[in-house]
């Protein structure tokens, strides 16, 4: 009766969830990496055990509330004896219950520790290092290399080779953020004044979405990033192309665009390697046209979206650090042509 | 109208006030002591936490000068003796002696405030220098707040004992105040160590 309602809700919720959990680009239940996989397994185990416990409690509640019992007036006061045998029996069951609870807790804790150790051990096998500095409200991503001139920066995007663990160094410049790519791993905070570290690895190709998971101010809701897992060869090729300086503008409109870019407010915040624009306040734009999305995952990349963003960033992401640039329509078109060519 | 209940005991003979744990105000005082002690403990924990975050401690300043802090320590420990005496004579409802004790404790209390002012001047840091300066000023300030409120309380009680409002409850107020002063002194001992000794040890 009363417990059927929640049971039904659980089923509905479960069914509703089921189809979504099979495919999700930002889902902890669609693991694409070793750690996310182990954590998901652990979660399903917990769910199974705890759902069984819950079902038991609900059944006991139903029985306790609705079991048939003897009718007749129940005397109160000192004439209302507590039957000693019942009390003793219930006490024995209580002890069993407490022991059972403890046993379940210990078991689940043991499994949790085991998974914890397993996913930590990945750190030793990292082959790549990426350094993320979180800022309000975007991700500055630096691919480190022992050879200094083979390091490069990008923004709001991580590409990694399938099967290769990547060490991610986590720093924050302003407030606390949290780096979370649920398909690959749990989250780790980026805290000003501290350096944290995590490791991610993708077991299969795919494009995943990460999102900042610690409230960081105004545009916390729009601080996502793209994580793309590709075969090793494709990754190496991408890396080489990212290392290269910006593609020189080939046609007149693009050249005009570059000129406009370098003589307006854009250079106050952005870097385009190979030109004089070298500010690191905002994202590096050297290869912007290769990115899946804009404005930290707020818009998919397209020339139209880029136009909308540059023309009025405050309309799309109010409060973001990018001001309205005040370019004329012609200037905007030429800058667009230039930026869209930065592959 | 209802019947009277069966009366099992007549309590007219019970006193209307009592010293120590028999009174509610003693427990109230204890409650506030626990609250303040927790606050001190947490501030001290914050001190150690911040110390653990920093390479050198103090980071760039010299530790507070010994003199005034140690004078304060000696003064406060010495004050325990007249405090205990006042507590004893208050238990005995000895008005004349209680008046003497309260005047003495008021004077000592005011003296500790004067010394505290000098301590602030001798800290060798400002609260806005760095985290060390901030926690040092807060620890000293937290204890100073207790000194101020306890001295205020003692002064009011002293005045009261010279008015027509002397009654048994006043004597229990005095004993509760003595308990609180014990706490203020006991809290100062570890704080003194924290502020004046620890920076010289690490």
């Amino acid at each position: 009766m009363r417990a059927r309602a929640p049971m039904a809700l659980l089923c509905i919720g479960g069914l509703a969830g089921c189809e979504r959990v099979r495919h999700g680009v930002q889902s902890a239940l669609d693991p694409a990496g070793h750690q996310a996989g182990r954590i998901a397994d652990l979660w399903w185990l917990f769910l199974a055990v705890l759902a069984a416990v819950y079902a038991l409690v609900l059944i006991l509640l139903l029985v306790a509330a609705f079991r048939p019992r003897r009718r007749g007036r129940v005397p109160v006061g000192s004439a209302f004896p507590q039957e000693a045998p019942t009390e003793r029996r219930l006490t024995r069951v209580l002890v069993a219950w407490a022991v059972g609870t403890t046993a379940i807790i210990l078991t689940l804790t043991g499994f949790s520790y085991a998974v914890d150790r397993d996913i930590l051990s990945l750190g030793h096998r990292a082959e790549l290092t990426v350094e993320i500095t979180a800022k309000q409200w975007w991700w500055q991503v630096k691919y480190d290399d022992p050879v200094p001139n083979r390091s490069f920066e990008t923004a709001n995007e991580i590409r990694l080779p399938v099967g290769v663990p990547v060490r991610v160094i986590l720093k924050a410049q302003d407030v606390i953020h949290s780096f979370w790519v649920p398909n690959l791993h749990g989250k780790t905070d980026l805290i000003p004044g501290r350096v944290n570290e995590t490791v991610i690895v993708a077991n299969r190709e795919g494009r995943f979405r990460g999102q900042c998971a610690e409230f960081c101010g105004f545009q916390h809701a729009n601080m996502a990033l793209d994580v793309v897992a590709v075969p090793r060869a494709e990754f190496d090729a991408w890396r080489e192309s990212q290392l290269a300086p910006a593609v020189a503008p080939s046609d007149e409109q693009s050249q005009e665009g570059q000129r406009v870019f370098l003589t307006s407010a854009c250079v106050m915040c952005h870097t385009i390697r190979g030109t004089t624009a070298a500010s690191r306040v905002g994202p590096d734009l050297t290869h912007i046209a290769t990115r899946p999305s804009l404005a930290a995952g707020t818009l998919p990349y397209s020339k139209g979206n880029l136009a909308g963003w540059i023309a009025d960033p405050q309309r799309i992401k109010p409060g973001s650090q990018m001001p309205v640039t005040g370019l004329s329509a012609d200037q905007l078109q030429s800058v667009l042509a230039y930026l869209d060519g930065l592959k | 109208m209802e019947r009277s209940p069966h009366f099992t005991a007549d309590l007219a003979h019970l006193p209307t006030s009592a010293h120590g744990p028999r009174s509610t105000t003693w427990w109230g005082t204890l409650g506030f002591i626990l609250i303040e002690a927790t606050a001190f403990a947490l501030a001290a924990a914050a001190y150690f936490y911040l110390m653990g975050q920093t390479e050198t401690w103090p980071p760039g300043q010299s530790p507070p000068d010994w003199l005034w802090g140690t004078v304060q320590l000696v003064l406060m420990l010495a004050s325990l003796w007249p405090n205990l005496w006042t507590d004893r004579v208050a238990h005995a409802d000895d008005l004349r002696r209680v008046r003497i004790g309260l005047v003495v404790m008021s004077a000592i209390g005011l003296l500790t405030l004067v010394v505290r002012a000098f301590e602030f001047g001798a800290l060798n840091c400002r609260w806005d220098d760095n985290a060390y300066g901030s926690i040092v000023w807060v620890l000293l300030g937290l204890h100073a707040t207790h000194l101020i409120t306890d001295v205020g309380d003692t002064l009011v009680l002293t005045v009261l004992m010279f008015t027509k409002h002397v009654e048994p409850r006043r004597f229990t107020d005095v004993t509760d105040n003595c308990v609180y002063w014990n706490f203020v002194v006991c809290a100062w001992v570890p704080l003194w160590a924290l502020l004046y000794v620890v920076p010289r040890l690490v």
Partner: protein
Amino acid sequence: MSARDTSARDSARFIRRDGPALGEAETHARLERTWATPPGLWGWLSSVDHKQVGRRYIVTAFVFFLLAGLLALAMRMQLAGPNQTLLTPDRYNQIFTMHGTTMMFLFAVPVMEAFAIYLVPLMVGTRAIAFPRLNAFSYWVYLAGGVMLWVAFILNVGPDVGWFSYVPLAGPQFGPGKRTDFWAQMVTFTEVAALAVAVEIIVTVLKQRAPGMSLNRIPLFVWGQLVTSSMVVFAMPAVMVSSSMLIMDRLIGTHFFNPAEGGDALLWQHLFWFFGHPEVYIIFLPATGFVSSILPVFARRPIFGYTALVLALFATGFLGFGLWVHHMFVTGLPHLGNSFYTAASMAIAIPSGIQIFCWLATLWDGRPRFATPLLFIIGFIVIFVLGGLSGIMLASVPIDSQVHDTYFVVAHFHYVLIGGAVFPLFGAVYYWFPKFTGRMLSERAGAWNFALFFVGFNLAFFPMHILGLIGMPRRIYSYPAGLGWDDLNLLATAGALILAAGVLVFLGNVWHSLKYGLVAGDNPWGAGTLEWATSSPPPSVNFVHIPVVTGREPLWEEPNGLAAVSGLRVDQRELLLTTVVDAEPDVREPSPMPSIWPLLSAIAVTVLFIGSIFTPWAVVWGSIPLAVGLIGWFWPKSPPDTPEPVVE
């Protein structure tokens, strides 16, 4: 016998005290004259009657509950679909902050305090709460803090950094203006009030119990409030210290949380959560007291496992202080430390589980009657247990690393807080409304209230478990389409509306029943605890005669009426202090008359606290009127004991 006691000197014929010599009607009349609060505005402002103060607290807390609930509806409307623009980011961020802050600081803790203030003195058989003027003072301070915060919010300078206000976002550099200062100072107001009430409750329970109410006969509700109050004493200082440090960082340039000058952002989290985790048990334990009070009455048998339940309360109280780092599992702390907190967080399930068993056993071995209070208790078990189980998931570091700061956590804490505290609270309202007002609430409306709550709540919050797992973080003012979050969010919004309908039914029920509800007698439910031994509502003096207690359910032990003690004064306010363990009569304690000084002192405190948001000098100058208020408060009013006038 002390020589100070004037009664020894005076002849017996001049003293009028209760007892066999004074008739019942005369005793009632004289006690009412002595204990009544004067009518009119002055009486209302100067009242020190714990029942009046308790009612104020309850009404005020429920007003804040409604306000915070409206904010929740606003959020749900905004999130019902992707990319909506009902609320701007700034307004949304203020709203979610105000929702959490209001619910936690202005509703949940105060309403539990409120029931303690009203019920604990009645349940232990005394005439007043300990330190009645402090009690009155605490209400005004609480009210001032809540009003200040909401005025700030209405003026668009409400806090917008979440109810736990992490730094550096809340610090001087990234949180300019006064928004966060209003939040931090509201915390100071409410913590002062809560600490005051905690001390009062502890002293009332330890010293003012009726004769014969030894420790093993204390009602479980009272045990719960005793443990809760002890937790308040040790937990609230942490948030006072941390919020004061935050105000100082913002106002006078200290560097507690500034990493550039040796401070640490995590210091805030440690200090806050050292308070924040016990806080949720401060909310939950009184609710277990509600359950333990209501179940025996509607299962019609004494509670099973009294000792186990008391031990479970203490175990929860202790363990609750050892869990706080589970809020910080993803901040990069050493792993070994995290493992300890996993174990502790799992371990607290054991006392909770024992409590659940004892309640189920009571129901099983009893003969249930399904009145509204019992419905809410059953709802509590269904919902709270689910929340507790999701808590076990969160205790695991790997699982937490995925679902921390997502809607999974939002689902978890609403299940444990609404299931574990709000459902028992509504059960408590239906149960004790007759005692507070003398009228019964409608059972029919109560059943609708319960059903709408139950269905609405589960529909609103169950989908959030899934939303968190499929990637939806907390505290986002909107979300993009295409991530599979749309339908579940819409479902949650529908559930919220149903829940709101339940609230409306409740309000209607209260409104109607105050006027037209069935008149309740002293003990309409046939309960066993002492508050039901006096009239509904109780007279100003609570008990015309201090009862003698012979068992855990005094009214069930003595169906022919309770014995009493005599000898207390009827012409001056007097109550009985007993010994801590065995509750043997010990001292006749005078109780304060109504006084305006608590209100005046509270006004002084308000000026000091609000002033110090704007300038540190407010602390200095503001302490002068405060000192005046406090001295006025404690200055004795009347000359010392004179022989009582002869009254024939």
